[in-house]
């Protein structure tokens, strides 16, 4: 069995992403196919109570994978999930962070459970999530 190389409490280096400008929102919409007008049209966003266009929540969740991969090249992510809470608005940055919550032993080795969090510039939780990572086999 492969010995765990992760420890509970290990922390990802935090990363600031953004600021997200209108062209960034449009470019992500084009790349993902998510053209929800909420993210692209200011008047539409204001009709739903937003002071500015909100950044796609998926843009934040997706940004965790390169962070995880750069942090531990010897591991590979098996899953990624997140719940979108407070929106990050156009013009704002978000801070990504994470911490190893626990290590699970499996028949094929270990799986690290990493708790993920993205915060808005105002310190509100934008996303709470989780990733599972295991030793890279190839």
């Amino acid at each position: 069995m492969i010995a765990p190389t992760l420890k509970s409490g290990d922390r990802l280096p935090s990363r600031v992403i953004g600021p997200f400008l209108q062209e960034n929102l449009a470019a992500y919409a084009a790349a993902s196919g998510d053209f929800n007008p909420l993210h692209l049209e200011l008047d539409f966003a204001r009709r739903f109570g937003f002071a500015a266009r909100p950044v796609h929540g998926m843009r934040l969740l997706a940004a965790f994978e390169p962070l995880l991969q750069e942090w531990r090249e010897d591991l590979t992510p098996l899953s990624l999930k997140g719940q979108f809470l407070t929106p990050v608005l156009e013009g704002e940055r978000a801070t990504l962070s994470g911490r190893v919550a626990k290590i699970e032993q499996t028949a094929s080795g270990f799986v690290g459970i990493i708790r993920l969090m993205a915060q808005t510039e105002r310190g509100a939780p934008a996303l709470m999530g989780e990733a599972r990572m295991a030793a890279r086999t190839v």
Partner: protein
Amino acid sequence: MAAAPKVERAGPLRVTTASEAVRTFRLETGWPGAEGVVPLSFPVVWMKSPEIAEPIRAAAEEVGLPLHEAQSFDYIERLELDRSYDLMLEMRRETNPPRLVAKADIHATDGSLVGHVVSTLRLIDPTSVPAPEDLV
């Protein structure tokens, strides 16, 4: 008694990890370069397929704006570049509160299961939202 959630199923729906689409997605999601593995979150690109987009559009027309509430990607094997996969879809409408939950099982073309994706969309009635000038 509450009505049972409305469930629609579809599939198999053929999708691909075409390298150009993967490159574009990597560049817009913070990867250091365009070339490399298919991101775990790449399947969101497949949500624009009519089989997925149409029930979302219909729910939005009936109830209101679909707002992404939660998302998960869970893999048995990583997606590979320039491959075809088949999605088996289940779209479930919940009413209290209004939600659309889209689940997709991802299969390789030999039928083996590769992973699962779940998208949860909250449907927001615009008349229930205060105008921005009413917000503090």
